[in-house]
């Protein structure tokens, strides 16, 4: 019964908080600063035509650089915790599932490439493309066509870090333009596509790794 009253207490506190938060939010007028205008005004210099990509890779590209570091770090933390237990043997799934997997994965790769390319002018980009690729890897693993990871070897470690390293190198190289990540407008489009391509591969590996490194735990 004590547990029950605790739940009631927490729920009532949380709803009171939501109530006051909601009331305070309704009091707000228009904001002092509206960033939509400057985002649109500088779109031509940003190298892309989609405002979200412009914010992510250009205006606030530094945030994205650090976010990629956070993702790499998440994988690193998992590696540090799980150690080097051998991966469990893969179990082949039903042949129909395997056939479906073989059919779906090439399509997913095509979708990923499209998403990467589309990011410049419509919703899409490296995160989405990487997620689709990672999903393809997870699918292959689930039908028994791709083994889980025991520990990443040199090639894989290089692939995991390459996207971030490339981004970091471009950011540092652009210091010659006057500041960190200051793209020259003429080359911005190409550089952003270069960064996004690298990120797609590394993000796919990182996201897939979050699954493939831990899959052995579930089966052990």
């Amino acid at each position, binding site marked *: 019964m004590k547990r029950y009253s605790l739940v009631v207490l927490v729920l009532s506190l949380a709803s009171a908080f939501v109530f006051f938060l909601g009331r305070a939010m309704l009091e707000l007028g228009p904001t002092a600063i509206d*960033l939509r205008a400057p985002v649109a005004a500088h779109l031509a210099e940003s190298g892309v035509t989609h405002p979200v990509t412009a914010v992510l890779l250009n205006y606030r590209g530094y945030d994205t650089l650090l976010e990629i570091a956070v993702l790499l770090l998440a994988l690193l933390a998992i590696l540090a915790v799980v150690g080097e237990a051998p991966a469990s043997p893969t179990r082949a799934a039903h042949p129909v599932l395997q056939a479906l997997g073989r059919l779906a994965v090439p399509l997913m790769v095509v979708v990923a490439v499209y998403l990467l390319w589309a990011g410049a002018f419509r919703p899409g980009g490296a995160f989405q493309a990487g997620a689709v690729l990672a999903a393809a890897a997870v699918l292959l693993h689930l039908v028994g066509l791709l083994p889980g990871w025991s520990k990443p070897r040199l090639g894989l470690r290089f692939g995991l870090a390459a996207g971030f390293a490339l981004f970091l190198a471009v950011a540092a190289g652009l210091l010659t333009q006057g*500041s*960190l990540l200051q793209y020259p407008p003429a080359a911005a489009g190409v550089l952003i596509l270069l960064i996004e391509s690298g990120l797609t591969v590394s993000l796919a590996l990182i996201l897939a790794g979050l699954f493939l490194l831990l899959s052995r735990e579930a089966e052990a």
Partner: protein
Amino acid sequence: MLEPLFDPLVWLILLPLAWATLAFVLGPGRGAWPAIAGLATQCWLAIELAQKVGAGGVTNHVVGGWGAPLGIDLAVDGLSAAMLLLTQAVALPLAIYARSYFKLNDPAGTWFWPLMGFLIAGLNALFVSADLFNLYVTLELVGLAAVGLVAAGGGAQQVAAALRYLFATLVGSGAYLLGVALIYGAYGTVSISTLLPLVTNDAPRLVWIAGGLMVSGLMLKTALFPFHFWLPPAHGGAPAPVSALLSALVVKASFYLILRLWLGPLQTVLPAFAWLLAMLGAAAIFWGSWQAIRAVKLKRLIAYSTVAQLGYLFLIFPMLAAHGALEAGVMQIFAHGLAKAGMFAAAGVLIKATGQDTVAGLAGSVERLPVTMFAFGLAGMTLMGLPPSSGFLAKWLIIEVALAQGHWIIAMVVLAGGLLAAVYVLRVLRQAFLLTPASATLTPVPRMLEWSAFALAAASVLLGLRGVELMRLLGAMA
């Protein structure tokens, strides 16, 4: 055109990111030398930057060339420069220490170097950021790296401590992020310099809620009493170099952020909470010291001492408007950072040598490990606040400001805290001076471990003699 290329401010972030990535690619257990070389360069960069700030005031870097509020600005004033100096000054000896501490194939050291690199990069990025959302990203970087370091290669107990730490740090950053989102909703910007003139006394109620959320989240991350529950198991259970990094630097990062908000964009909102924070700080001093006095295990004792020492930092808030309070707080950050890093490092040597980690098992250590016990004693001196240590200077400054303001109660708390610290430090030293039991055997430890611990502890005492330079640096505020 070449000046921005060598801007020390940017390289303090890029360099640790680069050596962390390199260490990751090099593989398990590798990367000590790139780390040490990188940190040595970073020390030099931090000194360069401090000189630049000391001479010319605030230094800016406009990332992407856009400028706030569209882009992200980085800014370094005296406070940031001081924190950067401390970070590099603590990290370099600890890196040298960790190289000897983690033997080959030690599971706890497998990914130590990349994790440490990302941790230092996150800290440096946090200290130079002038953008509330970017600060959140750096908080995540620091928090995740710290959790990874605590969990690495440990048993079930250590992973449990790390998980608890993860939840605490995630709730903390989550509350901070919600606060940032509310502020963005109210003003349409997250740039500190743009917000500064916008947040006025008649700020909407939402901003008060945001301020409360941000400060509570950061209090949780700073382990202010009664939010300290996660700290002793996490700091006490981790390998010694990790405990040292966490106690000396990571908890200070979230405190720095509270200070930054207090002095910056939320200066009209936050002072309403000043006495609450000071009261919790006082409670932390008493509770932390009491638990340290009772602790059975050496590292648990030191971890509770961190809880107590963090309490002093929060005593300055009611007096922050007065001249000298900020200086006192930063001096305490330095004193505790250097002393606690030295003390955890010394504890690591004692644990390695005696093969156990209770206070009772330290009998005879003075005879066998004089350098390490000397280091422990010097660090203890700083924690107690004996002259001429920097701890003495910090406590002296707090008392001076408190008395000038008529807050004699704060002065009393500081004095009592010093006495309590003496009890738990002397408890360890007394045990160490006892005769060695005949049965005890000591494992030999690398000299480098003993001397890097000694260097940190000695620095914490010697800084007391050079406090004036630090004060002058803090004068260069925005």
